[in-house]
């Protein structure tokens, strides 16, 4: 640089330095403001003196349902020394966000939520603390949790990385008003004797569905969609999961669900209305189907979206076997700077009758923690189910469910099987061949799997 430092150059330097200083100042001011957005700061733990002389520790809790705020509010009463910052992380990217924070090495919450479909991908890898090792004492809770759930949250080498939270006991739902209109009994015990429980088979269920549809002049089917109502139930009755470790079980486990779903579709006993969309919602309003085969968590959505049906629904056990659909876990990432406080919160939230039931009452999220079911709440008549004591039935179903296998490849296996299912239902592909093709596809596509 041969330029002399003249007046203009000096001014430029000054301006530049001033700008930099301002940038730095902004950076400092902005950092603490980001904190409530749910990011644990990488440096010092979030301890701030508040409420007189007590130190309040802040912990962050991620879940994908706004109702989680109840836990944050209630826990403040139980343990005023800890403030739970609940962050509503939309389900569509909640798990991706957690995965990203593991990859980045920071940004994970103190308490994370994991859904059953994604659990296999997290237990097989690092990032989550072992809740059986100090400072945690999760091992003692094993006897209180629904058994299959405990296995899912554990790793093959026996660490517990995800604490069971809620389960999705499932059965057959039906509309009492539509059953009566069609000339059938509407009392759950009588209906279960006709089509549900271990004494009945899917063949009985289909025969009844056929008769029901004929009686209604073809207007009302017993259920909406062979894919969700029949395949979804029959597959899960065998215990969910298309692989046991590296062994792919698609041929064994998909053949019968495919065949029964295809049979229902070919006989024309389903309403042929796909689930989860506007068509299904319109179908409920139009009485296009009088029942469904689904899990307990439908109660919340129906109360909100189909209030005219509240009080008309009843539940019975599904034919042949009980099953589970869905459910979640909570976990404490290794990154957490406040593991002890996070663990106290987790124990209160998912492993105490108080914490579980305060959420259950508001949301219908069904506890995996069995002592919570002792609450008189579970024997009360439920208005949504027309006074039926439905919660006790869910609890009994939840306690009698076959083991569910979870592996890191579940989502991919589900997609492979799902693609074949669409061919079976929409294009009339032979169910046995479809199961074989899905198995072959999985073996080819998913590394390290065996047949």
């Amino acid at each position, binding site marked *: *640089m041969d*330029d002399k430092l003249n007046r203009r150059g000096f001014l*430029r330097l000054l*301006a*530049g330095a001033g*700008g930099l200083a301002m940038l730095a100042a902004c950076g400092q001011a902005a950092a603490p403001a980001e904190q409530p957005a749910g990011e644990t700061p990488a440096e010092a733990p979030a301890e701030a003196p508040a409420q007189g002389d007590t130190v309040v520790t802040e912990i962050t809790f991620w879940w994908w349902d706004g109702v989680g705020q109840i836990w944050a509010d209630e826990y403040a009463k139980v343990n005023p020394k800890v403030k739970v910052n609940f962050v509503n992380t939309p389900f*569509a990217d909640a*798990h*991706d966000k957690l*995965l*990203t924070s*593991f*990859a980045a090495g920071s940004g994970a919450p103190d308490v994370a939520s994991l859904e059953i*479909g994604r659990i296999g*991908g997290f237990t097989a*890898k*690092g*990032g989550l603390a072992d809740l059986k090792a100090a400072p945690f004492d999760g091992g003692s809770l094993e006897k209180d949790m629904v058994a299959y759930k405990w296995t899912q949250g554990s790793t093959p080498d026996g660490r517990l990385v995800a604490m069971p939270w809620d389960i999705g006991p499932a059965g057959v739902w039906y509309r009492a008003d539509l059953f009566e209109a069609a000339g059938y009994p509407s009392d759950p015990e009588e209906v279960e004797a006709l089509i549900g429980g271990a004494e009945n088979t899917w063949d009985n269920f289909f025969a009844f569905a056929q008769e029901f549809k004929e009686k209604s002049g073809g207007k009302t089917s017993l259920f909406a969609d062979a*894919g*969700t109502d029949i*395949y*979804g139930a029959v597959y899960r009755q065998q215990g969910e999961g298309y692989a046991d470790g590296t062994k792919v079980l698609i041929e064994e486990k998909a053949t019968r669900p495919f065949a029964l779903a295809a049979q229902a579709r070919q006989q024309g006993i389903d309403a*042929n*209305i*796909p*689930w*989860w*969309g*506007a*068509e299904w919602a*319109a*179908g409920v309003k*139009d009485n*296009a189907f009088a029942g469904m085969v689904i899990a307990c968590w439908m109660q919340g959505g129906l109360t909100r979206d189909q209030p005219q049906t509240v009080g008309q629904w009843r539940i019975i056990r599904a034919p042949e076997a009980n099953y589970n659909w869905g459910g979640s876990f909570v976990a404490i990432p290794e990154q957490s700077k406040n593991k002890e406080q996070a663990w106290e919160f987790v124990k209160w939230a998912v492993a105490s009758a108080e914490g579980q039931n305060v959420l259950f009452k508001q949301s219908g999220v069904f506890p995996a923690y069995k002592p919570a079911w002792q609450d008189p709440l579970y024997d009360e008549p439920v208005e949504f189910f027309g006074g039926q004591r439905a919660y006790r039935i869910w609890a009994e179903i939840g306690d009698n469910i076959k083991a569910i296998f979870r592996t*890191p*490849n579940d*989502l*991919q296996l*589900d*997609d*492979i099987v*799902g*693609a074949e*299912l*669409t*061919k079976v239902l*929409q*294009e009339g592909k032979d169910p046995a061949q479809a199961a074989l093709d899905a198995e072959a596809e999985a073996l080819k*596509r998913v590394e390290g799997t065996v047949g």
Partner: protein
Amino acid sequence: MATQTVSMDARARAQDRRVMWREARRNGWAYLFISPFYLLYAVFGIFPVLYGLWLSFHKWDGISPMQWNGAQNYLKLLTDDIWWYTIYNTIWLFFGATVPQLCLALLLAFIINSSYIRGKDFFRAAYFMPIVCSAVAVSLIFGSMFGERYGMLNFALSAVGIPPVDWLGSAAWLKPSIAMVTVWQWTGYSMIIFLAGLQAINLELYEAARVDGARTRDVFWHITMPLLRPVILFQVILSIIGAMQTFDLPVMLAGGTQSSAPGGTDRAGLVAAVLLYWTAFKYTEFGYAAAMSFVLFFLIITFSYTYNRFQGRSPTE
């Protein structure tokens, strides 16, 4: 450009570079002031691209340490039938949605730009409106219109005696349905770009053509089209890029992320960008997904370049 550099001898080039650096050094403070742009670009633009390239030669599940994998991801991709099927779906949608959309947009722009149309502002706003809507909201509304039993579209068809169509359920109709929504959403946007191009054409040319007795069709083919070529080129290239990366409409209309419908019946609505995203975040094969993204990038470059060449050799030149 190329011939210039070749004709320039090494000394002149070195001299040139020295001058350039001296200029840059003298204006150092200016670079400081624009630093927020290139620093952010380096962090959020260049770095992810290079990291993605690096990643595509690894096996990585997002949590465990990365493993060097050589070209294995790319070799696997070559024989991945689902991947090439998603590329087929993507290209199908380019020809089924983007090409008609561009033609329609050009036609509309020409009509709106013509002197005998009143209320140009109204039409411009009306056609542009769909692009303002979020793709998710659009998909939900069209999803209900496409419903087999309760959808408006089938209701309209039934009024003229046509049996209901399973728009989103059957493999044959899924792509046309997605294409229809894409055309609906994007035509107005392309139209605005074309319109801007049309308005830049000197009106005297039209007047001269009229005086010489040219018909509207002749004016369109011999004045509008040649002069609009740069704008068309720009818009077509952007559309190729957009179409190859199409994501939101297909993922929503082909069943969302429900595992029971992975891209619609027989994966008929599964496009490349969706499979790429799922491979990374659902199947946690980040290295493989990175390889997919670079193959997609290469395809986009190839198509854009091919179009550019084709356009260059147009007989109207």
